[in-house]
């Protein structure tokens, strides 16, 4: 009983919150949505982690087995030492190895520093607690069916650029201009309803049946 009494005020305030936490123009909500779908750099991290583990383990085994008097010789250590004693820093092989190491480091560094583009399309919402995203294919498909619903337009293909949606439709040659404009308006309208985080411009290309 007491628990019920305790819960009551909470449930009334919850009703107000259910409508969604309004957050101005959605800047905070937009940031949340954007960051929720950033790439997690899993592939690069796996490469780096495997390399680190392998390198560390082999080096540790070599060093401690040699210190213990029974070198494990997992790598041809003597040959490597002899080669390193013979070749100078100017040697092309040494330079190539250094360049490869530096490039690998640069790759890891950029993967860690650059935020990366989400592979899905984050949607703009009014609620900062709700981050929603759509697959690129899903957005293209929806827009294509909208374009095909325009009279005269058929076989729509939609591709998604960085800031541009390219729509290509088949239409009879005598109504190209009208159909293009209608398709553009319809697709734009649907985009305004879906509200992706990125503002896309719509570009329509018409293919006449003969061409």
């Amino acid at each position, binding site marked *: 009983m007491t*628990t019920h009494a305790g819960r009551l005020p909470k449930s009334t305030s919850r009703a107000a919150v*259910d409508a969604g936490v309004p957050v101005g123009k959605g800047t905070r909500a937009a940031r949340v949505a954007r960051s929720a779908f950033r790439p*997690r750099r899993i592939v690069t991290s796996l490469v780096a982690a495997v390399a680190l583990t392998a390198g*560390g383990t082999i080096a540790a085994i070599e060093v401690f087995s040699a210190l213990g008097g029974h070198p494990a010789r997992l790598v041809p250590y003597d040959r490597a030492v002899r080669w390193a004693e013979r070749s100078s820093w100017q040697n092309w092989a*040494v330079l190539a190895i250094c360049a490869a190491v530096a490039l690998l*480091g640069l790759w890891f560094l950029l993967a*860690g*520093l650059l935020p990366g583009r989400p592979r899905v399309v984050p949607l703009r919402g009014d609620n900062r607690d709700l981050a*929603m995203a759509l697959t690129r294919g899903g957005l293209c498909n929806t827009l294509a069916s909208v374009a095909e619903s325009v009279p005269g337009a058929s076989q729509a293909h939609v591709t998604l650029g960085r800031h541009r949606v390219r729509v290509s439709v088949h239409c009879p040659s005598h109504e190209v201009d009208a159909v293009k404009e209608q398709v553009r308006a319809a697709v734009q309208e649907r985009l305004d309803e879906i509200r992706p985080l990125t503002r896309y411009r719509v570009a329509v290309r018409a293919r006449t049946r003969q061409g």
Partner: protein
Amino acid sequence: MDRHAARLNRVLLVLTGVLLAGAGGIGLALGLRAFGASRAHEPVLSRATRHFAAVHSWYWPAIGAGAVVAAIVGIAWLLAQGRSDGITGVVLDDGDGTGRTIVPAGTLVTALQDDVQRLPGVRAVRARLTGKPSAPRLCLNVAYDRRADLLELRRSIQAPALARLRGSLEVERLPAVVRLRLVTGDERRTVE
């Protein structure tokens, strides 16, 4: 999904990146005579280096310890990729400090999945609760097909489905990440 791993990945990638780029860069600089022509002519493994290693008894144990640390960091990093931050239960706080109830996450998640699954055009739903038992977060993946009305689907997930989950959790806020995925199949031909 798991933003914790994402942050760890970034930090460790930057660290290993700096180390590798630094080492490779210094090697290149030596070879390209940035430190003078005499340094560029020296062998990679000079007599001085070998002498240093032979004289100082701590040299090889220190290298070995460094290698062990690198291996441990690498293994921990690998394990972090597979780890999920899912939680098995949610703590309901009664608010007046009289008691706490733990609700298993499976029950809550199944109820939400059923709610969403009933929406038209939804093929598959997978929900997970993550975060802390006292401050849960929701991760929801919805696969829908061409029959679904995207806007309607979005509204129905947002208003009734998530609101119901918030209601049963008795929380005012439940941060949620929702992914809508279109699955293509032969559905279109058979249905229309």
